């Protein structure tokens, strides 16, 4: 008898313990939320709810007030007003290309070549390496006015000349950062410090992605290195991590570990996922925790992506003349391959494609980093691919729906770099944030426009100066967002990509 009652007691105790374990804080708050008190609580907690976008969501009428978004964070949402483009391809030249050898023609600078830089220009300025009094250095390229627009392009970019009438130049962009890492962060997240979401994350968070088998935000790198600022330049900051950029490799497996392990067939994988999802569904019936549904959804999405990602990342099936147009180098990691991939991704409905090409830091300390030789090689590497990208999108009717942005994190000085106050081995220029060139092309962009003007030596913008925030505001505008309304509640206040600044650059809009 005694023995039996012991067993019963033990069972009862175990039951009690199990019940207590099952009642976690989450369930407590969850059950609160069903009462009036919970309603009040949830509004208090709204600020720390990672899934509460400040723009209204369409609730597809799912049980327990779950929106489609909770289940599938990449489902699409409508922007504030009519979008001009559906996708963005952002070409970032990491290291900062020299505007003075590519787009910003300064014949006056040639006249002062070799002369000391006037002190008035140097006062109060910070340079990364320039010491004492540097000498001015004229443009190391030949310029010509091209196309009907008559915009200037240097002989470093012979192919790009043919599409100059498709793009709009921003000649006087400025940034307040003069080192690569912070300047790249600023350019991509709107803040030179870590922690903010990148522009691609904002876009996918706000719009979702049409193709449910591919990531919404893809990052491709070339040039042998990743950006100095690290992966934070495509990070999701305080946004849910599902919106961060997915870095795909153009060589080898596009995503690491995407292949099924040896001995695991796709069918087995599917059964595994089905089994896990079955258990998860039971859990959901028991606890009605929306996170469980989101998890189910993500397993399935990952499974679909396993097929779709390698497919879209395979450029071998492209016809030969397309490969030639881009200058594809099969099996290599190159900017050309990435440009072709970018087109394929956008064609398949990917929202934001970010290309980073490394190796543009032309200080003149080494041959590759010289503005007359190394820069020319880098220009050759991007000239054909980026021109082909514009033409290829255009002929497929995709350029109407896509925005291409080209630029670096800052520009370069009109002075020759004199690191350590000594003459450098090669011709180079130091970091310079006061004035540099960017261009945009695609839907909603005024073709052949050129906005902004720098002074005679290209040191500062004298007209049409635009900030990094202005560039962001313009990109968001083209995607259909009011950059001042597009916010995310975090740590008790709404955050914006453009912080408290940013004006749409209307001059380059069609």
């Amino acid at each position: 008898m005694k023995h039996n009652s012991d067993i019963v007691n033990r069972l009862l105790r175990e039951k009690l313990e199990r019940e207590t374990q099952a009642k976690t804080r989450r369930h407590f708050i969850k059950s609160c939320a069903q009462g009036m008190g919970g309603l009040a609580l949830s509004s208090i907690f709204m600020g720390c709810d990672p899934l509460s976008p400040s723009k209204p969501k369409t609730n597809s009428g799912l049980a327990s007030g779950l929106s489609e978004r909770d289940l599938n964070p990449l489902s699409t949402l409508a922007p504030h007003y009519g979008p001009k483009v559906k996708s963005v391809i952002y070409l970032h030249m990491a290291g900062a290309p020299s505007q003075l050898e590519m787009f910003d023609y300064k014949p006056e600078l040639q006249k002062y070549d070799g002369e000391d830089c006037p002190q008035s220009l140097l006062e109060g300025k910070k340079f990364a390496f320039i010491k004492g009094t540097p000498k001015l250095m004229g443009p190391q390229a030949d310029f010509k006015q091209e196309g009907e627009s008559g915009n200037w392009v240097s002989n470093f970019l012979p192919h790009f000349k043919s599409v100059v009438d498709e793009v709009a130049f921003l000649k006087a962009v400025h940034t307040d950062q003069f080192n690569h890492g912070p300047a790249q962060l600023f350019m991509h997240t709107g803040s030179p410090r870590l922690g903010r979401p990148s522009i691609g994350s904002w876009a996918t968070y706000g719009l979702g992605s049409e193709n449910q088998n591919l990531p919404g935000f893809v990052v491709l790198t070339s040039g042998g290195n990743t950006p100095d600022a690290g992966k934070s330049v495509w990070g999701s900051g305080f946004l849910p991590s599902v919106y961060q950029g997915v870095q795909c490799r153009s060589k080898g497996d596009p995503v690491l570990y995407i292949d099924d392990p040896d001995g695991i067939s796709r069918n087995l994988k599917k059964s595994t996922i089905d089994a896990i999802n079955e258990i998860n569904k039971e859990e959901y019936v028991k606890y009605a925790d929306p996170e469980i549904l989101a998890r189910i959804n993500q397993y399935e999405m990952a499974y679909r992506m396993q097929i779709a990602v390698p497919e879209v990342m395979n450029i071998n099936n492209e016809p030969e003349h397309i490969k030639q147009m881009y200058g594809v180098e099969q099996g290599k990691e190159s900017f050309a391959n990435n440009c072709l991939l970018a087109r394929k991704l956008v064609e398949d409905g990917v929202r934001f494609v970010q290309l980073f090409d490394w190796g543009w830091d032309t200080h003149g300390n080494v041959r590759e980093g010289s503005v007359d030789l190394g820069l020319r090689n880098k220009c050759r590497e991007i000239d054909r691919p980026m021109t082909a990208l514009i033409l290829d999108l255009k002929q497929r009717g995709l350029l109407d729906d896509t925005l291409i942005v080209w630029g670096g994190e800052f520009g370069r000085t009109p002075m020759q770099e004199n690191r350590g106050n000594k003459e450098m081995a090669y011709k180079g220029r130091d970091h310079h944030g006061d004035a540099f060139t960017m261009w945009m092309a695609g839907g909603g962009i005024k073709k052949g426009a050129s906005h902004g003007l720098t002074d005679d030596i290209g040191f500062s913008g004298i007209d049409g100066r635009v900030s990094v925030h202005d560039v962001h505001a313009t990109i968001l505008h083209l995607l259909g967002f009011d950059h001042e309304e597009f916010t995310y509640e975090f740590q008790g206040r709404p955050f914006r990509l453009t912080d408290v600044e940013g004006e749409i650059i209307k001059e380059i809009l069609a």
Partner: protein
Amino acid sequence: MIDVLQQLLGRLHPLVVHLPIGFIILGLLLQWYDRKQNQYSEVIAFTYLCAGIAATLACITGYLQYIGEGYSFETVKWHLWSGIATALFSFLMYAKFKQLNLVAFISKVPVIGLSIIFFVLISFTGHQGGNITHGEDYLVEPLPNSIKSALGYDTFEEKEITLTEENWQDALIYEEVIQPILNNKCVSCHNPKKAKGELMLHSAEAIINGGENGEVLVAQDTEHSELFSRMVLPIEDDNHMPPEGKTQPTKEEIKLVGAWVDAGHPFEGSIQKSKLPKELFVSFFPNKHDVDHPDIEIPKASQDSIKAIKAIGVYVDPISESTNFLSVSCINQSSFSDGDFEILVPIKNQISRLDLGGTQVTDAIFEMLGTLPNLTILKLDYTKITGEKISLLENLEHLKTINLTGSDFQQKLDVFLNFKNLNKIYLYKTQVDPTGAKSLNNGKVSIDYGDYQLPAIASDSIIY
């Protein structure tokens, strides 16, 4: 001393009044609770006795407040008489439940009748009191204008700013631009009837006169012109205008008021004369045509139809939050075929952008596409269509772009001649001769055959 006490007691009136209200409501509830057993008459009587005493106190404090705070008799008379009536009625109800047959007729009136009168009386008294403290339109104010005017209240008619690309310079700067802004966002609290802060903003003279803190406009000085500076304070700031919760002016409107102050706040003359730049006014121009959809208003598509379409894996979403037009895409559903079109029929008026690229549709689809009255952008790239019967689309007056890239399209370009608003056709990788016309209808329709090449040049292989 007595004065102070009198005033203090008077000011306690708004507090004391809640006691009789509470007691009376409690009494009425008890009556309802006891409607069958009739065993709590004693308790109900006691409640009404308390109500009567509390109401008498409320009447006394109320009278003191009326004397002390300088209200006119005209303002308080209804409240005063109904308050006294409430107090008397409470005692009467007490008598009724105590069955003290003081007056013969009380016993004859059914108790339910008395209760209803009592409830109406206390509501009326309370409401009159509220009107004195908060103003007569306190409850009406949050209602939309249409309901307000239906109830017979004065409304400040919303005035619209109507500027166009052509006539904006001729519009009167104050009358047609600034005044409508102030009218819609400020005047409901700043008018001759209700001048909060003694400020009225309904006319030029009133604005110049300013309010209790003096002038609200200082020429060419936005910082010291409170009319402007209060609008740009953070919304949480107590001095922010319009107050939190009221309709706020848009940022374009605020900017415009600021520019107007900077220009010396002219009340006369046209925009041109004020020399304000065009960009301030552009946002008030009628919306420019959006590329993706016709410039008309249409009703929302039913959520159920959208759900049904999404369920088969076809993407449907509004083009933007500001329109009901939908973008439909089969990007996730390449098995979509002619037969599946049926599911799109319930939203046929809302579809303005349709992407059937890469699907199984055939030439039979054109008959169905012809029933989409608002179709603006059509993608049929990488499909098996040959373009036979594409002329069925020529009556679609909004159709602007047709993308046929990579399809089996093989018709003569003449089929597009009668299209109404077509301006772009993509024919890359089709069977149409790329040496054909680059445009149709005198350049109205441009044709892109694609197949762009980047010829190899010497510098392609020079390595520096």
